[in-house]
C-alpha cells in the first residue's frame, strides 16, 4: 500500500528536513505489520515527492492477531485487501515513519513547520466505505481540494460496478503536520473496517491527532465512531464460520439484531409514524397493545417468544404483575445483547428471579416452555418460511399451550402508506412474508380451530380507512374445556 506526498514549495527538498528523511536514500522503518519503505521518486528544487510504501507481511498479520493460532480465524483474515489498500495499517506506518513531522518538530527547518505549504497527496488505492462522496465529505472541510475516482471491481465484469477503493488526490496549502494528521485519522476512518489493533489508548491517539480540527469538523461523531472501530463479539465467530462454509457474507447469517429496513431512515419512514404532532413509534404502540392484551388476560407468567434484544422484556419487567418473565430467542447473540440491556448481572435478587433468558428454536417443541399463562409472538411469525409455520404452530399452540397467545405481525396492505418503502418491498429484509388482514385472520382462525383457542383480532397504530392499521394483532385464548384438560 502506498501514499505519496509532494510539494512545490521552493526549495522543494526542504520536505526531507521536515520529514527527517533524507531524499538521497531509501530508508526502512519496521512496524508491527511489516516494513515501511520511505523513498523519494522525485526530489529537486521545484518538486519533491516522498513515497511511503508499506509491505505488509500477510501471514504474520494473521499470526500476530491470533496469537500464533490459525484455528478459528475466518478465511477473510487470510485473503483480504490489507496488504494492498491504504487503511489503518498505513496510518500506523505513517505515524511511526513521520513521528516528529506529525508533532510539528523540525530541527533543521523550525520556521517552516508553521508555514502552509503547497502540498499534493496521492493515495492510489484508498479503502473508503461509502465511496467518493464520503472522501469529499471528510476531507474537503479540512481545506483540501479533493479529486477522488472510484476504482472498478473488475473491468471484465462491468456490471459489478465500483469497488470500495478510491484513487484519491488531495491538493491544498496546509502545514505539513496537519496534512499528516489528517491522513493519520482519515485512513482508518474512511476504511471503517475492524482494526485488529484497537486498544484502550486509541482515544488518546485520536485526540492528539485531531487536535485543532476534529472538534469543529461537521462529521465529528461519525469520525470518532469509525475511528474507534467495531468490536467483534466472540460469540459471532461460530456463525461467521458457518457463513463461510456457505460462501456467504457473515451478515447474511448474523442479522438477528439488525434493525428493520424501514426504520433505518428516521422518524418519517416506515416503522414510525406521526399523529397530530407527537409521534409515538409503532414499536412502542405495539408494546402497549400487547401489554393491554396480557393485562386483560390476567397473565402473570409470560414468555416472550423471539424476544430479540429484549426491548419488550424490559416493558414486562417494569410491571410487577408479571411474576415470571421468560425471554426466548434462537440467537445466542441476541440473548447476550438482551442480558446486557436488561443489566441482568446487576438486578437485585428478587427482580433477577423474575426473569430468565432461554435459547430455543420456535420450530422445535421445548418442554421448558410448557404451562405458562401467556406467550407473546411479537413480529416473529413473518421471519419464518411459510412451510415452517405448522411446526411453530405445533410448538406454541400444541406443545407449550399457554392459556393466552398474543401474535402481532405487519399488515402488508398498510405498506403503501410508508414513505421510503419501495412498492412490493417488505419492512425488514429478513421478512419471509407479510400478510394482508384477510390472510392473517384466516391463519388465526384455522390455528384457533385446530388447537381449541378463541381468537380476537385487533389493530395497532393509526387505523387507515382503506388499508387498516400498520400492525395486526391476534389474541388467542384457550377455550375452557381445553384449559380444564
Amino acid at each position, binding site marked *: 500500500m502506498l501514499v505519496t506526498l509532494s510539494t512545490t514549495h521552493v526549495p522543494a527538498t526542504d520536505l526531507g528536513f521536515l520529514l527527517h528523511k533524507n531524499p*538521497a536514500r531509501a530508508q526502512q522503518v519496521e512496524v508491527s505489520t511489516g516494513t515501511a519503505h520511505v523513498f523519494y521518486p522525485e526530489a529537486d528544487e521545484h518538486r519533491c515527492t516522498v513515497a511511503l510504501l508499506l509491505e505488509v507481511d500477510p501471514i504474520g498479520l494473521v499470526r500476530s492477531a491470533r496469537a500464533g493460532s490459525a484455528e478459528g480465524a475466518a478465511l477473510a483474515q487470510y485473503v483480504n485487501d490489507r496488504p494492498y489498500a491504504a487503511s489503518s495499517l498505513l496510518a500506523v506506518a505513517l505515524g511511526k515513519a513521520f513521528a516528529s513531522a506529525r508533532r510539528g518538530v523540525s530541527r533543521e527547518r523550525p520556521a517552516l513547520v508553521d508555514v502552509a505549504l503547497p502540498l499534493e497527496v496521492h493515495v492510489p488505492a484508498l479503502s473508503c466505505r461509502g465511496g467518493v462522496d464520503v472522501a469529499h465529505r471528510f476531507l474537503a472541510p479540512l481545506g483540501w481540494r479533493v479529486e477522488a475516482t472510484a476504482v472498478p471491481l473488475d473491468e471484465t465484469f462491468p456490471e459489478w460496478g465500483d469497488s470500495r477503493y478510491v484513487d484519491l488526490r488531495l491538493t491544498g496549502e496546509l502545514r505539513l503536520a496537519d496534512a499528516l494528521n489528517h491522513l493519520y485519522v482519515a485512513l482508518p476512518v474512511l476504511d471503517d473496517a475492524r482494526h485488529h489493533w484497537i486498544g484502550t489508548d486509541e482515544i488518546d491517539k485520536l485526540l492528539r491527532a485531531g487536535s485543532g480540527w476534529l472538534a469543529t469538523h461537521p462529521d465529528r461523531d461519525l469520525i470518532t465512531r469509525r475511528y474507534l472501530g467495531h468490536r467483534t463479539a466472540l460469540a459471532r465467530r461460530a456463525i461467521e464460520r*458457518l457463513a463461510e462454509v456457505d460462501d456467504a457474507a457473515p451478515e447474511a447469517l448474523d442479522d438477528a439484531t439488525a434493525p428493520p429496513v424501514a426504520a433505518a431512515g428516521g422518524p418519517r419512514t416506515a416503522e414510525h409514524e406521526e399523529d397530530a404532532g407527537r409521534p409515538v413509534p409503532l414499536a412502542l404502540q405495539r408494546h402497549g397493545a400487547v401489554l393491554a392484551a396480557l393485562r386483560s388476560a390476567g397473565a402473570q407468567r409470560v414468555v416472550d417468544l423471539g424476544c430479540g434484544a429484549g426491548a419488550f422484556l424490559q416493558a414486562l419487567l417494569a410491571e410487577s404483575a408479571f411474576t415470571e418473565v421468560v425471554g426466548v430467542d434462537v440467537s445466542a447473540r441476541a440473548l447476550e445483547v438482551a442480558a446486557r440491556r436488561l443489566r441482568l448481572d446487576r438486578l437485585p435478587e428478587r427482580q433477577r428471579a423474575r426473569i430468565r433468558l432461554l435459547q430455543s428454536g420456535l*420450530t422445535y*417443541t*421445548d418442554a421448558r416452555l410448557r404451562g405458562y399463562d401467556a406467550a407473546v409472538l411479537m413480529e416473529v411469525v413473518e421471519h419464518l418460511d411459510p412451510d415452517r409455520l405448522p*411446526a411453530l404452530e405445533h410448538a406454541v399452540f400444541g406443545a407449550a399451550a399457554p392459556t393466552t397467545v398474543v401474535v402481532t405481525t405487519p399488515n402488508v396492505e398498510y405498506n403503501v402508506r410508508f414513505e421510503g418503502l419501495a412498492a412490493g418491498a417488505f419492512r425488514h429484509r429478513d421478512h419471509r412474508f407479510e400478510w394482508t388482514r384477510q390472510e392473517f385472520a384466516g391463519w388465526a382462525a384455522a390455528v384457533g380451530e385446530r388447537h381449541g383457542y378463541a381468537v380476537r383480532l385487533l389493530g395497532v397504530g393509526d387505523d387507515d380507512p382503506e388499508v387498516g392499521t400498520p400492525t395486526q394483532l391476534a389474541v388467542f385464548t384457550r377455550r375452557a374445556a381445553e384449559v380444564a384438560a
Partner: protein
Amino acid sequence: MTAGPRTVVVPELSLVVLIGVSGSGKSTFARRHFAPTQVLSSDSCRGLVADDENDQSATPAAFALLHHIAGIRLRGGRLTVVDATNVKAEDRASLVRLAREHDVLPVAIVLDVPESECLARNALRPDRDLAPGVIRRQRADLRRGLRGLGREGFRKVHVLDGTEEIERAVVTYEKQYNDRREDTGPFDVVGDVHGCRAELEELLGALGYDLRRDEQGRAVDADHPAGRRAVFVGDLVDRGPDSPGVLRLVMGMVAAGHALCVPGNHEDKLVRALRGRNVQVTHGLERTLAQLEAEDEGFRREVEAFCSGLVSHYVLDGGALVVAHAGLEESLQGRSSARVRDFALYGETTGETDEFGLPVRHPWATRYHGRATVLYGHTPVPTPEWVNNTLCLDTGCVFGGRLTALRYPERELVGVAARQVYYEPARPFPPAGEAAPLTEARRRDDVLDVEDVLGKRVVETRLAGRVTVREENAAAAIEVMSRFAVAPEQLLHLPPTMSPSATSTRPGLLEHPAEAFAYYRTEGVAEVVCQEKHMGSRAVALVRRDGSGVLHTRTGRSCFGPGLTAAFLARLGDAVDGAGLFAELGTDWVLLDAELLPWSAKAGDLIRSQYAAVGAAARTALPAAVSALEQAAARGLEVADLLDRQRRRTADAEGFTGVYRRYCWPTDGLTGVALAPFQLLATAGTTHADRPHAWHLALADRLAEADPELVRGTRWLPVDVTDPASEAGATAWWEEMTATGGEGMVVKPAGNLTRGRRGVVQPGLKVRGREYLRLVYGPDYTEPQHLERLRERSLGRKRGLALREYALGLEGLERLARGEPLWRVHECVFAVLALESEPVDPRL
C-alpha cells in the same frame, strides 16, 4: 459347627438398603460385597457437606445429597447400596419411594447384631462418641420395624442374624425377569389375537411355522424350521370365537420354547376373574369365561397359572427391541415396578374418555425418543405405521380387521384378514385398505424437540462410534438451522467437510497428488479414483419423481428462490426420469451430492466483496508502487529488490484475479446454471455409500446425457497407487487441469466406503492446484518466504472433523433408509452443521 454360605439374592437393578444399628458392621459388609462406587454412605455424605463424618447436625443435608446421588444412579440403571442405619421406618420409607420413582426394586438387608457387640465396636472407634442410650434406642427401633419390611414395600428382605451369619453371607445377583437381552431372535411378533384361533393358525402358517396338533386335532404347538420364535404382544383372549384354543396353542409354544408372550390387560382381567375376584364381565370377557366353562378344571388352572406368570414386558436383542402390550416409555424399559406393569398393560391414559366412552390414551409414542424399537398392540389401528421407532401391531382382527405380525429384525409385515367381524367395536373401526384418518401419532412423527439438538450432544454413529457436539456449536447451528435452512423434513443430508492431502515439499507447491496417493497406499487401499473438482458451490439435491424437492447448500439454505428452485428441480427430475433412474433404482426420489456451477451463481456477493475487491485493490496499488519505485530507481536510489518484489506481486495479483474470473459467468434464470452430481447419496430405503465411485460417476454421466445443458459429468481417472506409471498419468492430468487455474481434483478410494488400518479411511482428499490456491492463501502465497511458513499447517484436526462429519452424514442417511423418525435423521444433519462451526483452519 460349619454352615454353608448364606445366600443373599439381589436383583441386578435394585436399591439395596442396609439396615443395622451403629456398629453392626454395615460398612464392612458393603465393602466386602459391593463395589465402592455402588455404596453411598451417610457418613461420607456428612463428610462431604460438613467436613466431619460424625457431625449429626449435618444429617439432613447429608441425606439430601445421598438421595440426590442415588436418584442419578438409579436413573442411569445402576445398582445402588445405601449404607446408613435406616432403623427408622420413615428413613426407609423415603428410600422405598426413591426406588419406586425410578422403577427399581427396593431390597432390604438387615444386619442384626447383639447390642453388646455393637457397643464394643463403637468403643474401638475414637472418632465416634455415641451417648450410651443411642444404640439401645436404635436396636429398639430396628426390632420394631423388622416384621413390617415387606409391607413397607421391600420386595426382598434378607435378615442376617448375628455376626456368624453375616460372615457367611454371599451376595448373588438375579437377572430381571424382563431382561432377555441375550436373546437375539429372529422373532415374529404377533399382534392382539383376541380369540381368533383360525386366523392365528393361518398367520403362523404364513410365517412358516409348522403346527402340531393333539389327537383331537387341536393346535398345541408350532415351531419354525429356521428356529424363529413368535412373540405375542398380549390380549390373546376375549371377544373372539375361541380364546381357549388360542391359549392352548400359545401356552404350548411358550412351554416348548417356541414363543414368548407378554400379558395384555385382558389376560390381567381374566386372571382376576378366574381367581373369583369381582370384575366387570364386559368387553368380551363374558365370551372367554363361557368358552372356558366348556374346558376342564385342569385347563382353567393352567390358564390362570400361565396368565398370572407372564412378565410385564421383554427387553430383547441386546436392548434393541422391547415388546410390551401397550408400549413402554424408555425410562420404564427393563425396570420393575407397579407403574411399569400398569404402563405396559394399560398404557398411559389421560383420565378422560372420548365420545365413544373409551379412555383417551396419551400418545406416548409421539414423544418416544428411546433407542429401542418398541412393538406393541392394545389400540387397534387400520394399518401398522412406524412412529418414532415404535409400531402398533393390533390391526383389529376381532373387529373384522387383520391379524398382523412383524418379522424382526427384517421388519417385514405379514398379515391375514379376519374371516368375519366377531365383535362390534365401541368405536367404529375402519376396514384395512380404506384411507386411515391421519392419527395424532402419525402427524407428530415429524415434530422435533429442542432437546434433540441443543446443549452438548452425543450422536451414536455406526462408522465412528460416539460423536460429540459442543454446546456452543449447537447454539450457533440452531440459529442457522431455524432461520435459514430448508424445512427439516426436506433436509436429509449435509455434506461433510473434506481434508486436503498432506503438505507437499515440492518447490513452489503446497499440495500435490503424490501425498494423496501415499495416504491411501499407507492405509492399504490400492485402487483410487481421481475426480475433477468443479469449482462451484457444493449443493445437495433432493429430487422427487413429481419434480418437487430441494436444492440446498452446505448449511442447508436453499440455493435459489422458490421459482427458480421449482424450475431447476423440474428439469433435474426430468433428467433423472429420462435416464431411467427412478425405475431402475425402484425409487420415487433421489438424493444427489453435487457441485452447482458457476461459483458466481450463488457466491456472487462474496466474490465481489472479497475476491474481486482484493484484486481491485492489488491491481491498483501495486502498479502505482512499481511506477513510484521506477522513478526512484531512475534517480539512482537503491530500490532494485523492492521494485523486483512489487513487480512479482503485480503478476501474482493478476494471477489471483484470473483464477476467480474462471469461475464466474453470467446466468439468467437457469440459463448458464449447471449441476455436476458426483454421488448418489440415497434413494428410497437404501444408501449407496458402498457402491464404487465408478458406479456413481456413470450415473452422473447418464444424467448429463439426459440433459446436457443442466447436468455436467465429472471427468475422472482410475489410479493404481502401487503402480508408479498409473500415478504419473494421474499427476500429469492434474498438472494440466490446474495449470490454467482449475481447482484441482479429489482422490477417493475406488470402492467408496473403505476401512483401513484404523477404522474408516478418509472418504476423499482434495489436491488443489497451485494457481487456485491463491484464492485461499492469498495472491502471493507462492513467494518462497510465505510458502515456507504456510507449509507448517497441521491437518490432524481437519482430518478428524472430516471423518466425524462423514460418519454423521452416513448415519443420517442410514437412519433415513431404515425409516427412522425425523428427529433421528435430523439429529445427524444438525450435528454436521454444528461441527462445521468448529474452529478449524479455514484454508484447509
